[in-house]
């Protein structure tokens, strides 16, 4: 019988620091056979181990088209992430997954896409952006609105630059008022405000909005006003997890287990959920 709780051992290929407290890590399976058979869909998450400390849940933030490795991104916040912070190239960590459901990339084909993210919520959006860009002809215009508290808190800035050069891609960067530096060329303002003021065309559009609850709260009405239906607005929830496989009873938001029936939800589903977040 498979030990569903036992992770695969992964070799750390690369560690990249984005901000004073955010790093992203590239890892590959130590076991070649496992590497070959592994597959996932963007939006799914994994549970990553720092042995001796514990496990932590992160979205797999690399595109599912990249076959030689997977990536995750985390903020140094607690015991496990502090242990993960210390890892270097060549180290070994654990991974189990992929768990959860995924973004409806197939349903989104033929639509324009708008990606809205705040702060550390860029990584779970990044995988979807890369996936869409790698299947460019299947999707319409792509707009990315990404903001953080300060310039130093923006992650994957080099990739944002790269995305801005791609065809029919608009990248709008913003920082909260007071977070700008003298040489900042992006916008200044909270994400919802920037979304509204940018007058982004939203016909035939699906949206992926991930960020702090308050950001989502103020962004949704703007998208609704622009005519995007609840069932076309998606988000990815997070919750404290342990098992990731629907057994430990920790991650439920009302009747749904975020690890099994999420973390990807659309607004129509989200509105049926009780305030258990």
């Amino acid at each position: 019988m498979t030990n569903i709780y036992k992770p695969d051992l992964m070799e750390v290929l690369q560690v990249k620091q984005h901000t004073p407290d955010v790093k992203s890590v590239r890892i590959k399976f130590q076991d070649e056979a496992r590497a070959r058979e592994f597959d996932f869909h963007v939006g799914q998450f994994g549970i990553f181990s720092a042995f001796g400390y514990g496990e932590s849940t992160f979205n797999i933030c690399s595109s599912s088209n990249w076959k030689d490795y997977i990536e995750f991104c985390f903020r140094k916040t607690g015991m496990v992430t502090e242990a993960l912070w210390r890892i270097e190239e060549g180290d070994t960590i654990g991974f189990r997954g992929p768990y959860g459901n995924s973004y409806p990339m197939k349903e989104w084909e033929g639509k324009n896409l708008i990606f809205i993210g705040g702060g550390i919520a860029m990584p779970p959006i990044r995988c979807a952006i890369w996936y869409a860009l790698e299947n460019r002809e299947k999707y319409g215009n792509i707009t990315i609105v990404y903001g953080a508290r300060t310039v130093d808190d923006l992650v994957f800035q080099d990739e944002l630059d790269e995305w801005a050069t791609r065809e029919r891609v608009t990248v709008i960067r913003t920082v909260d008022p007071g977070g700008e530096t003298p040489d900042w060329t992006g916008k200044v303002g909270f994400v919802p405000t920037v979304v509204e003021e940018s007058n982004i065309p939203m016909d035939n559009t699906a949206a992926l909005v991930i960020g702090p609850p308050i950001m989502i709260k103020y962004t949704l009405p703007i998208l609704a006003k622009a005519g995007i239906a609840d069932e076309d607005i998606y988000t990815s929830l997070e919750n404290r997890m342990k098992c990731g496989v629907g057994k430990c009873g920790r991650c439920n938001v009302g009747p749904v287990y975020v690890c099994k029936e999420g973390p990807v939800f659309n607004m129509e589903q989200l509105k049926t959920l009780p305030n258990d977040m």
Partner: protein
Amino acid sequence: MSEVISQQTLSQLVDQWISQGKRVAGPTRVKPDVLLYEFLTAADQLLLNGFIRPANTIKELIFPRTEKLYGYRLEGKQIELYDVEPPATEQIVVGARPCDAAAFPTLDYVFNWDYKDPFYRRLRDLTTIVTLACRDHDEHCFCTSVKLAPDDEGGSDAMLFDLGDGNYEVRCLTDKGKALFAGATQSSDKVGKAGPGPEPSIDLDKVKQFLDTNFESPQWQSLSLRCVGCGACAYTCPTCHCFDIVDEGNAAGGARVRNWDACQFSMFTMHASGHNPRSDKSQRQRQRIMHKFQIYPDKFGEILCTGCGNCTRNCPVSLGVKPVLEAIQEIATTETIETK
């Protein structure tokens, strides 16, 4: 026609199983006023009457309070994972309460939901459960309110009925049960009967209706006010199964273990960011009731409660599930507020 076994033969069987190296558990008096299910070293430790039910449950045999998931060795940058020797010893429970055994068919759902939990499966397969139908009940029992009965067969491999004359009727319900008692029973025309059980007092439909429409109700505050926030209810509940996963070891290695956990603890849903979706005790109490009487039934079709009453008996402030359900029922009927 029935099969019966004498107390003496039963004791001999139990001693035989123990001497065969099997792990045999049953109700036993650990201290003058402490009655628990424990592993026995001799049949004379087994108690089959004179009490309502032990203060703990038999879930320990299939879902232990602490369980190693696998081990890890650390050598510089090298990490090696190794599997723990799976249990292989047969386990037998004698004299379990039907409300304890009935938990397992219910728990089977969550432990096999898409991902099959091998630890649960193995111990489940290794365990034979012999229940003893109840003749008595106390004010905390409410099995009949959750569609069970003092002689409910769910989860039992064999059920004993005290005939009152030093003999027990043995009803073997599964192959495991039959194998256990093969050749040890005698035919008889005596048939055992369980007690009537408690008068059903909870209208589950009313409770479900309340739960479906009152997530935000201010009633949860008063319903949970005296709760002290321990895990006594969850840990002595036959169906509660929440667990934590932790790494325990030292610089050379250790093991990743899973331990019982309870939604009643304040840190249960605490995020690393410091945000806690259930920072209020009332929210945590609501979660427990919802999980048992709404979420689990909606998802798997079974109530996550067998009406054993352990939660209230073990609760330092006599709360537990039944008083809350009764209060909910009253609210749903008359809009009063107190929890009795």
